[in-house]
């Protein structure tokens, strides 16, 4: 297997591993949404749940990391097939975009924890 192909297999595996993580996270997320929207959302209610909670911080940080990577690798496939964006440069950009989104999400999770 050449280097190029190894990278492609790695991206596919990351996509499936992040999918497995996301499957659990999304179930928790959907349940939380359905629970929380009853009677309307308020900052006090949301922050009451997340403020100072290491468990929620860890959950949302993992969730954001998996979602950022998963979304970027998925967009990479769509861009390759529907727009013809291929190659190592595009791959590097997608990986960077995925990690940047993840960092952005983790920053938001820290905000919910520290607010």
């Amino acid at each position, binding site marked *: 297997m050449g280097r190029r*192909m*190894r*990278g*492609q297999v790695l991206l596919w*595996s990351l996509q*499936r*591993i992040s999918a497995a993580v996301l499957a659990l996270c999304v179930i928790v997320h959907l349940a939380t949404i359905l629970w929380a929207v009853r009677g309307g959302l308020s900052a006090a209610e949301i922050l009451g749940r997340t403020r100072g909670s290491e468990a929620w911080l860890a959950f949302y940080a993992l969730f954001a990391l998996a979602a950022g990577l998963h979304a970027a690798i998925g967009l990479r496939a769509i861009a*390759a097939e*529907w727009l013809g964006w*291929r190659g190592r440069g595009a791959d590097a950009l997608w990986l960077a975009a995925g990690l940047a989104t993840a960092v952005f999400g983790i920053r938001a999770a820290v905000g919910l924890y520290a607010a």
Partner: protein
Amino acid sequence: MEGTLTVKVARSEGPVEYQVPARANQTVLDVVSYIQRELEPGLAYRYACRVGMCGSCAMTVNGRPRWTCRTHVAKVARRGVLELAPLAHLPVLRDLVTDMAPFFEKWRKALGHFRPREAPEGEIPDFALIPPASPERQQADAGIECIGCGVCHAACDIVGWNPDYLGPAALNRAWTLVNDLRDGAGAERLAAVAGDAGCHACHSTQSCTAVCVKGLDPAAAIAGLKRRIFWQDPFGWGGG
């Protein structure tokens, strides 16, 4: 069924419409042969066995790739109209004839040929060790009846979007050989079918399985390759 059948053929020069007599129990290949013999001697098409063994007569019939020798007109004609075109995703040589060379080149790239396992030094390879009824042999047999007609390749959207993609037929062949205990090229073959041009390009649209004339399941074969590669070497570090 009596009367006439309207057949629109996507010829190299452009679409041409023919009227042919509609008969009971005629196949699409019968209709094409009638056109070539009675109406248009210059019409190019391909067939050999006429009984669903050789895989050479496939073409697009009313938008869907099919083996024409085993496709009854009555089943596929819409309001007495047949639209015929060459197979998709392959270069057209002339009229209804496609160049199958790129298709079989992908089989070669996927290491789609049997390579016997090396026998230990001084021993004679024993090919009779695997009973036909054993689960191992049955797994290899699952995809072995492929006749190489190119119907799944023509139906696969991923092949259309990514011309380098090896496609369902070549990957089904590779999975068949990966499961053949007599074969000795397993690791090399898994490496040949990995990555964006290989099994990892498949999105499980399962059009290949939906159109396979032999009732095979290339989509499941490709899933099998992904699974095998994942558990052997998920990050491409070269193990296994």
